[in-house]
């Protein structure tokens, strides 16, 4: 039981999600605690969440249910309720453009998340050096996140334009062999998108990781200094593992952003050149609106939902088994 207690208190309070999972510790007082909480049931809070519950069930769950249903029909623009089996899914997985989209989102996702983490952490380490202008610098680094992705995409499209942007400026300054216009070539367009995505996301990553860094116990830093460990080692191998909560938060935010990516694609490349930067969400919306084949779009959307559902199930099972282990201790 002592083992379980220490395991529970690992990590600083602000990184916990705020739930108190019943562990071996509380099992003894279980009934009393449950009784006490039941008497103090917060009616006001429950009433306040009723609109959210209605919206969640009515809009999200109902909407998702309808989408899944329509993915098994031939709906073009107006609803057609006749079921046709897996026809849309067969077409989906034999469409070149969709395969490209799936490939692209993996490449873009992994590159973008790694780049964001690396740059975000570097910026956080930089900001952790007790600079005088820390607030000002933090605001500046956070500004890109405040810009909508459409504006970000458009600005970067101009910056990366060979006739007007960075390339042209460098040429005018005399550096004529400079060429940085990845968006014009189907093979490198994806990397141009990563650049814009990192520019936009590194700031908020920095802010979260900085908070995580600050949450690491001051004693750790002192102990590391006394032991003669160089600063970069401390940051990388001691502080970072202790910031699991912050890193997890960043990863979740990044994954959500990557899976949903749409506006930056539309404004930066229009899924071009050709269909080289197509992404699943862009595919879904194209088929829902421009191409008037709603059933195909919904099949793609349901397919996008699958990995999320699988991850949720996996996490749920993991939590279930982990809790059981602690209780039996």
């Amino acid at each position, binding site marked *: 039981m002592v083992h379980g207690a220490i395991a529970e208190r690992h990590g600083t309070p602000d990184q916990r999600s705020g739930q108190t999972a019943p562990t071996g510790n509380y099992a003894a007082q279980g009934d009393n605690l449950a009784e006490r909480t039941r008497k103090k049931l917060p009616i006001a809070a429950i009433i306040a969440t009723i609109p959210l519950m209605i919206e969640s069930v009515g809009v999200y769950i109902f909407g998702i249910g309808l989408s899944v249903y329509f993915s098994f029909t031939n709906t*073009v*623009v*107006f609803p057609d309720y006749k079921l046709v089996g897996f026809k849309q899914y067969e077409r989906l997985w034999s469409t*070149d*453009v969709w395969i490209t989209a799936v490939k692209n989102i993996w490449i873009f996702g992994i590159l973008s998340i790694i780049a964001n983490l690396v740059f975000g952490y570097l910026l956080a380490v930089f900001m952790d050096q007790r600079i005088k202008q820390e607030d000002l610098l933090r605001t500046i680094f956070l500004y890109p996140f405040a810009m909508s992705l459409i504006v970000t995409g458009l600005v970067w499209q101009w910056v990366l334009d060979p*006739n007007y942007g960075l390339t042209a400026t460098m040429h005018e300054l005399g550096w004529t062999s400079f060429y940085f216009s990845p968006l*014009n070539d*189907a093979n490198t367009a994806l990397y141009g998108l990563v650049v814009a995505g990192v520019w936009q996301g590194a700031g908020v990553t920095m802010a979260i990781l900085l908070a995580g860094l600050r949450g690491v116990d001051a004693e750790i830093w002192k102990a590391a200094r006394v032991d003669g460990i160089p600063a970069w080692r401390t940051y990388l191998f001691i502080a970072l593992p202790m910031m699991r909560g912050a890193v997890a938060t960043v990863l979740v935010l990044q994954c959500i952003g990557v899976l949903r990516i749409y506006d930056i694609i539309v404004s930066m*490349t*229009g899924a*071009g*050149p*050709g*269909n080289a930067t197509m992404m699943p969400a862009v595919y879904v919306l194209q088929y829902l*609106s*421009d*191409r*008037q*084949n709603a059933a*195909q779009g919904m099949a793609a959307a349901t397919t996008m939902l699958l990995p999320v559902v699988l991850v949720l199930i996996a996490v749920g099972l993991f939590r279930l088994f982990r809790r059981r282990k602690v209780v039996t201790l």
Partner: protein
Amino acid sequence: MTRTMLVAALAAATVLSGSAARATDLEVIHWWTSPGETAAVHTFRDAFNNDGQGDKWVDDAIADGNTARSTDMSRIQGGDPPGASQFNPGREYEELIKNNQLLDLTDLATAGNWAKLIRPAEVASGCIVDGHWWCVPVNIHSWNWGWYSKAAFKTAGLPEPKDFQEYMADLPKLKAAGIIPFAIGGDGGGWQIAGAFGVIQTEELGHADRDKILHDKDLTLAGGPKMKQVFADFKTLSQNSDSGYANRNWNDTWKLVDSGKAALQIMGDWARGEFAAKGEVGTKDFGCMIGLDEAHPTVSTDGDVFVFPKQTDPDKEAAQKRLANLIISPAVQLAFNNAKGSAPVRGDVDLSNADPCMQKTLDVLNNHPEDIVTGAQRWLSNDTTNQMNDLFTKFFNDPNYTVDQAQADYVKIIQNAN
């Protein structure tokens, strides 16, 4: 006393403002945004605003056709339909008709004798479903044109091309002279690329075979040697274009030909509207190769129509009918089509002063109906059209996508066309 006067004044103001609010505003969604197109749509706007019934044209121009049409769909589905919408004749609005969302214009058509007035019959048939009229045809546009720069051919020391095969032979000399031999833009999902392909396909296969593939879905012809040649020629053209085509729209591409930087653009005759907006005259200031073969011209019955989504307000419906009648009237047809570069749908409009290129179209329409082809989008759904756009875009873009692979995928699309 003052109080009564105040109440009286308020009552009068309410009544007056009430009657002013009865003037009908019709919101019109269209995608005519280039200089020539804007000049043309203003003729509609001015006619409607000045029709003496207090009508007002609320312009809602959306630059990309795909976006405009999907805006129409979502607004009609969402219960906030526009007053009038531009479409191309074909299957784009068949869902709207099926679901009873459009105003029935049959009574207008019978009263105005549209069936007799509109020529050729293929133009009217785009609006007639089950014996009812659901839209009003606005113009006749032909896709089958090659617009070329006389200056560019002169610089390269070449005579002006009379047909497509001669133009293909000219490509190396044009390139050597520093001119972009083939100008095209890749925006909007590849509609320009697909359109150019269709024009070349019609020229090389001939009307009968082309109709067999696109209407009868003949797979043997689609996979045959003639189509292979079309793909091969298109591949050659993709190697004779410039690198900036990726997201370029059609009128910026047209500018390349107009300025002499590029030799030829395959584009519908709305391009002539751009020349007209600059005051240029066909065959004198620029070249127009009809059907890509002067000896065997082709005119397609593409063009535009206006549909009128159902409204709940009977005043609005009356205004919609007024607009429909104005659009088909001879004066408006003359003004609009002159600015637009298209041919009027009525045969009784006096076009003796029309541009020489337009005269070529009119000659076919009036005297050689056997040279008219029906636009392919009458037969192909939006989905199939977009699949073809994807295919031709990839073919134009990717040097590793071979002629045989592309033709095999083309056959598959025709096979699965719904």
